[in-house]
């Protein structure tokens, strides 16, 4: 399968995503330059972390208008897989591919830490290789990761099983201490109505080798392969 990793001028996790796909997953990956209009036949698009345009004004606000995003949005609307990680999540929300918004962390500080996320639904395109309730150790690194949306949107997400990951403690409880940014209902990741767009603040691409602390992120990428293979 072919993964397209979008490189915005200020992306800085594109490299990590690229290596996770090629080295760990052993799949093909290409970088997609933000000024191009060509997805180069990618099956899966990754909007990587970073500071796409310095994240001035609002994280992701400017990036969503770059040329490549027209193609990415079309790709998503056609039902094809798109993953927005961290800054990519913010861009996906700004672009309307996912509901809600990501605001400044409630404690107002950038937070870099290994957090635990609980798998809330294991039958999505991105989590079918996990079990519901699995606790994953994945790093977060962001200043604007507090997920917000109107109560009815939040209820909708929950009722439709579109909340994929929540911040939890080592025992799996959704305590507020386990919530690194004040996200509503401890939400760490959601999928779109069609289930083909995933947005999450934690960095699965940074959790693909025990050498650097965790390999819990690998199965997320494997899930996509499994589903498409099936």
């Amino acid at each position, binding site marked *: 399968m072919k993964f397209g990793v979008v490189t915005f001028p200020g992306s*800085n996790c594109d490299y990590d995503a690229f290596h996770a796909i090629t080295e760990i997953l052993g799949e093909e990956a290409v970088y997609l330059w933000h000024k191009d209009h060509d997805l180069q036949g990618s099956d899966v698009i990754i909007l990587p972390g970073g*500071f796409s345009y*310095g994240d001035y004004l609002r994280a992701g606000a400017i990036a969503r208008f770059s040329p490549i995003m027209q193609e990415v949005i079309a790709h998503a609307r056609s039902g094809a897989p798109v993953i927005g990680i961290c800054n990519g999540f913010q861009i996906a929300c700004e672009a309307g591919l996912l509901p809600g918004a990501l605001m400044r962390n409630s404690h107002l500080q*950038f937070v870099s830490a290994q957090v635990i996320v609980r798998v809330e639904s294991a039958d999505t395109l991105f989590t079918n290789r996990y079990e519901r309730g699995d606790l994953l150790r994945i790093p977060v690194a962001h200043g604007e990761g507090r997920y917000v949306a109107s109560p009815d949107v939040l209820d909708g997400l929950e009722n439709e099983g579109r909340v994929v990951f929540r911040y939890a403690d080592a025992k799996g409880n959704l305590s507020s201490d386990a919530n690194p940014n004040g996200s509503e209902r401890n939400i760490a990741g959601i999928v779109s109505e069609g289930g083909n767009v995933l947005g999450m603040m934690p960095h699965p691409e940074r959790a693909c080798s025990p050498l650097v602390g965790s390999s819990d992120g690998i199965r997320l990428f494997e899930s996509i392969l499994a589903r498409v293979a099936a």
Partner: protein
Amino acid sequence: MAHVLPRPGDPAITPALVAEHGLTKAEYERLVAMLGRAPTFTELGIISALWSEHCSYKHSRPVLKTLPTEAPYVLQGPGENAGVISIGDGLAIAFKIESHNHPSAVEPYQGAATGVGGILRDVFTMGARPIAMLNSLRFGSLDNSRVRYLFAGVVKGVGDYGNCVGIPTVAGEIVFDKSYEGNPLVNAMCVGLLHEDDLIRAKAEGVGNPIIAVGARTGRDGIHGASFASEDLSEASDAKRPRIQVGDPFTEKLLLEASLELIKSGHIVAIQDMGAAGLTSSSAEMAERGDVGVTIDVTRVPTRESGMSPYEILLSESQERMLVVAKKGHEDAVREILVKWDLTAAVIGQVIAEPVYRVTEGATVVAEFPGSRLVTDCPSYSPEARESDAIKALRNADPFAVAERPEEKDSLWTLEQLLSAPTIASKAWAYRQYDSTVRTNTVIGPGGDAAVLRIRGTNKAIAVKTDCNGRYVYLDPRVGGRIAVAEAARNVACTGARPMAITNCLNFGNPTRPEVFYQFREAVAGMGEACRALGTPVTGGNVSLYNESPGRAVYPTPVIGMVGLIDDLAHITRATFQRDGDAVLLFGEMRGELGGSEYLATIHDQVLGAPPECDLDLEKAVIDALLEAIRAGVVSSAHDCSDGGLGVALAECCVADRENAGGADIDLSGWRGMPNRAVLFGESQARIVVSTSDPARVLEIAKRAGVSCARIGTVRRKSDSLTIKLPDSVLKAPLVRLARAFHDTIPSIMSRTPEHTTFDELTQVAAH
């Protein structure tokens, strides 16, 4: 030589103006002699920047020359933007440390941020991709709200800039001491990775080659930052406040990618950042290194504001700018690469055969100096050096004459006091704001003895750390200088790395004061001794003098940035106890030295006594023995004894990794006749706490190396306390109390302060 006339509208050169530019009468006469005439205003500005301490090293150069700089693997020593060492496999590491003390004292957030930006550029202009940032910070007491404000602002500035550019900040040190109250130290270090063949030097070459200004436009900010960095902090710097620079990490990221692409493209011959003294020093330094002449037309420099004078354009310290010497005819190719990254490039001059440094404003010459003498002919001083009698007296005072406090009967009380001393306590409050995992090379991040980064495509890793105990250097500069290097070496060795080379940042007071210059000379001498003994040459660094707030100099603080190499990923070793039942061993000798200790400072508010002895042969032997044991695969953890001595080191081995805290049973009762406080909190050097599954093997390795090594206990992962048998009592320390003291202190101090919500720290932080 062209005929240079004063520029209409420029102020006339008066003694007052000369003084304002920080030039002494003698220096002015030197300038006139060099020119054979009176300088123009523009020329005066250029010289005041180039002859400032920061750029000229006029007080430090002769002393720096005494440092060892060579080893077979050193590819680039001092003299370039960064030092470079080979790590095999055709790969090399570029690294450099630099200070941004004075700007940070005035505007902590921007001061620290632009400090990070500057050192990043020094590294990627060598052709290296930055892979890690470190820092070394000094502040006054956190009880002072201004200090908390500076601390919060600096940490946020360091974090936001590195986070945005996407370079992990992986290690550093933070020390709090009254001596830094009015003059914090902010040193930033950058480490980069490159292919040996991509190494490029900032050396102008090739007559006729175009000189191109790249990156951000030139504004009026930071004019005379270089000379600003060379003055005492005082009202004078207040007046310069509006001159502070603002950093733009986003542009820096573009500049980083564009520069690396330029270097690979082969279209350029040299590249250098416009750092201190901006266009002036970058162009002059490149011309000098290449021993060629240059001519620059300021009207071609892209400016942010209209009506900027040549003086302003030459001295502006606007950030995120580079100077490039391209190959003639490749201008468009260069421009193309920059356009791709939305950056501008403007040809502003060229390399010429005539040995002059010439600046024109359109057709008119506004400044001209004879060739490279501009850089080489700067003044050089060796001021008087005399040790202060007061400090000598302090050193000779007997630490054991300091009476114990009644509370000390309970050693747990003392241990908790030390663990919660901000200098010793966990710095997670700060490094949680640093992205330490981006680029996924970080095997050991902040919190360990040293940070460890794997080198992709090899089975190797590097270990990096910054270190300096200014209190030791204050009490005995020679010994303190040695210890700074030895401790840094020990720290990287604890992770399994062979110490390779250092960069250094010499933070001292006003060198024209004899007691300060004595400290400088002696500390550098001590560093040199240690570097020779440990085989870690100096590849570069930076000098920051005049670190004084009215009246008082900061502790002399020669910060060492050490790089070590791990040949096999399997050798990577952590600081905390790992396996239940492991034997706990102590490498090195118990000398019970309390002089200059954290114990005296924290518990008794005393800074006195001779700092611990630093036996460099022993240091080397201990490091070698430790590395042999690690390579033998029998070491589960290794942690060196530093601030707070063995007691604090053992506590850290148990609770530093809070999620995986575990206990241990330790027996130190063998050191009879040594007071508890000396056993527990003495800071004798060359000591390392090791846990191992095969004590016999480790003891045997130590024996062969002639290093004393003793079994002092057993790891008890399931126990809820650290138990230490002392000569005349038993210390039973519940892990929860140790953990609370160590982990909760700084967060609770910082949460009771409003300062960390001041708005300059609420400036853009975004996601990642």
